[in-house]
């Protein structure tokens, strides 16, 4: 049993269990906290793939930014957010059936596709290389999406302020 495998197994178990509780918990705050665990677990996976920068971003943006936003929202809303009643049993079952079928199908497909894992190198990505890719204008360079992304973020900042502003 390889150490990588053990770490992965640990992460996987934590993530799945947290996720399950996150979507079933009747306490919103608890759900958010469990989501945080999942996000951290994801960051862990990125690190395992040697995608360190991505893992860092995952932690700062998701865990540090988004979850904080959630918590702010929950705090602002207060009591209203406690009301996390579950849906009707019919839809519950329908949702579960659909989700399980989907899951089964996807897993079946994944297992039957046969991915070639041999190209994997544990080298990770150089930050310089990444910076060049993000800012470059050549083939496989992403300046345009990058700028689009920045505009999107700006727009949604403005949008969020506009929406949340008191009248």
């Amino acid at each position, binding site marked *: 049993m390889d150490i990588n495998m053990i770490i992965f197994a640990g992460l996987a178990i934590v993530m799945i269990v947290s996720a399950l509780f996150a979507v079933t918990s009747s306490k919103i705050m608890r759900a958010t906290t469990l989501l945080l665990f999942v*996000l951290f677990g994801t960051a862990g996976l990125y690190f395992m793939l040697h995608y360190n920068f991505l893992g860092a971003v995952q932690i700062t943006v998701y865990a540090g930014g988004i979850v904080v936003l959630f918590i702010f929202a929950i705090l602002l809303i207060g009591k209203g957010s406690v009301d996390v009643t579950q849906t009707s049993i019919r839809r519950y079952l329908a949702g579960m059936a659909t989700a399980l079928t989907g899951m089964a199908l996807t897993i079946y497909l*994944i297992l039957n596709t046969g991915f070639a894992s041999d190209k994997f190198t544990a080298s990770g990505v150089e930050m310089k290389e990444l910076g060049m890719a993000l800012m470059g204008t050549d083939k496989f360079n992403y300046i345009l999406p990058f700028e689009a992304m920045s505009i999107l973020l700006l727009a949604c900042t403005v949008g969020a302020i506009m929406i949340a502003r008191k009248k």
Partner: protein
Amino acid sequence: MIIPAEYLLILSAVLFFIGVFGFFTRRNLVSLLISTELMLNAVDINFAVFNAYCQPQHLEGYIFSLFGIGVAAAETAVAIAIIINVYRNIHSIHIKKLKNLKH
């Protein structure tokens, strides 16, 4: 030892469908948002995995994941703003109460 790509993909698939399940069954806007985040997260994992296992010499998946995180952030910000606004107007974020857009 290298973890087989399938394991990672299966993990992300499980996470994704948990998110789907949550999205189907939760009745609270914040909970829905949480489910959405789960799904997005699963997708991000897939991008990273595919990049790492199939096209390590390029960075498409990597950068897609990055953008995905950015978009998730933006989306959450707007969503939370909307939720707060909704709450301010109807004093509830229960989706049953949100009917004014329906007609």
